[in-house]
């Protein structure tokens, strides 16, 4: 029973990491930038959700508000900040790292803005569903109705995302622009607009990850939340494990990381909370440097 419990907790946490990893991958694919502000953007979106909860009193409004707010904010960041920086990125070593440094700067700006708007103290988002564990054969699990709900929502979002990417013209445009922007342009795709859309989708995925990370944790929300540091690190590591370029890889990477961390905490030591993801990252990089799904770039001639 403890084994199943550990597995389910790992899958739930992992599904949240998957969403965050997808956000990293979408941004990487559209602009070749590792967006260190991703967790900051997720945090801001979660505050949007918090604002919706406190105004309308319903978590069910918070989820779409956070997603739309996160998507719009991410699109704005791409349009106003990243577009010019990324265009000039090939002109030299300083211009080359400028977009990444800019995302670090943005992270700071977002945190300060949150502190100014909502204050530095903890705010609370109460989950609409019980996080008290299911009881099976008289023993209580950590796996709860809330965790089940999170899992179901993530699975639904992943299905929608995979239909969007695999079955629609928009998805084809997104994939073509990611792999070969020049061929995409020659095929008539407005690659700049597709890039903005990639960021927007990443913003929405990050928003859901942020909201779920908060309610799956203690429900507290603050500009310096350690939950969000963990989300940033885990999401990024999951994306790298998955090869950074693959959406399926991001999902598998997230689940793998979530389950692995859950088992380490349960069976090795719960004190390894912050070090475990890094050790797992190093192990993966030693064994499969191209990630689980990743392809060696050299083959593309």
């Amino acid at each position, binding site marked *: 029973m403890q084994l199943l419990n550990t597995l389910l907790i790992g899958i739930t946490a992992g599904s949240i990491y998957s969403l965050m990893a997808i956000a990293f991958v979408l941004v990487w694919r559209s602009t070749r930038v590792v967006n260190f502000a991703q967790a900051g953007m997720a945090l801001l979106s979660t505050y949007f959700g918090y604002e919706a909860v406190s105004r309308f009193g319903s978590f069910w409004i918070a989820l779409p508000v956070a997603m739309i707010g996160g998507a719009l904010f991410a699109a704005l960041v791409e349009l106003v900040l990243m577009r010019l920086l990324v265009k000039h990125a090939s002109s030299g070593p300083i211009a080359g790292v400028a977009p990444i440094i800019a995302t670090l700067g943005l992270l700071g700006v977002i945190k300060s803005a949150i502190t100014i708007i909502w204050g530095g103290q903890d705010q609370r988002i109460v989950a609409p569903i019980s996080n008290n564990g299911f009881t099976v054969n008289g023993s209580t699990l950590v796996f709860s109705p809330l965790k089940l709900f999170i899992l179901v929502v993530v699975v639904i979002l992943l299905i929608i995302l995979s239909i969007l990417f695999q079955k629609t*013209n928009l998805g*084809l*445009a997104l*994939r*073509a622009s990611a*792999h*070969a922007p*020049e*061929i*995409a*342009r*020659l*095929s*008539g*795709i*407005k*690659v700049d607009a597709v890039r903005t859309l990639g960021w927007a989708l990443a913003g929405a995925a990050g928003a859901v990850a942020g909201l779920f990370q908060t309610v799956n944790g203690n429900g507290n929300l603050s500009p310096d939340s350690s939950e969000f540091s963990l989300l940033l690190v885990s999401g990024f590591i999951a994306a790298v494990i998955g090869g950074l370029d693959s959406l399926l890889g991001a999902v598998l990477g997230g689940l793998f990381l979530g389950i692995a961390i859950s088992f380490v905490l349960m069976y090795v030591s719960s004190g390894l909370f912050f070090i475990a993801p890094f050790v797992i990252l190093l192990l993966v990089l030693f064994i499969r440097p191209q990630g689980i799904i990743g392809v060696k770039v050299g*083959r*593309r001639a």
Partner: protein
Amino acid sequence: MSLNVSNLTVHHGAICAVNQVSIAVPTGTLAAIIGSNGAGKTTLLRALSGLNKPTSGVVNWMGERITGEKPEKLVRMGISHVSEGKSVIPELTVKENLELGAIWRKDGKEMKESLEQVVSIFPRLGERISQRSDTLSGGERQMLAIGRAIMSKPKLLLLDEPSLGLAPLVVEQIFQTIRDLTTQMRLTVLLVEQNAMGALKIADLGIVLNLGKVVAVNHAQALIEDPAVRAAYLGY
């Protein structure tokens, strides 16, 4: 004249890659553009499809001035560019690569008809329609790249070194296909080639570039017989 280029100049940074080029290509003409490495052939094509911005000069297409327009607009005006080096997307399937060519057309029925047309021209692509395109041979990839261009219903086809890296027999086949397409679909084609002899043999018009300038324009057959061109580009 469907394509009229006058005094076109394109720079790569400080280097002048295309220098005051003027060419006129009538509708339905297959024009071979030959010249040694660095003659500006690829840059000329990239300027025509909108990938490179010209410094000066004018490009007219079907009576409309298109100088400096973006590729995503030009493809809608019937200009399709198959860029150098087997321009297919290896991560996508054959079918997806083809659909990409028609993605801006939005009309599902037309897309299906074009797909059937391309498959009838290149039956090999039909056999491999759901494979990832990195499983194709070099020749098949070139067919796919041309097929993608045809999917966008082009009137002007810009082909950059379709013979590059292919076996002689496959090269012959690709060249023959290009000739047939030009005639059957009444396309205007600019064919940039290192394989000067192969290209001139199927072309109506020959254009020789050297260091960014046009040094000779003539009927393709006349160029083949021109002793100076033979010595410099045909190697005998």
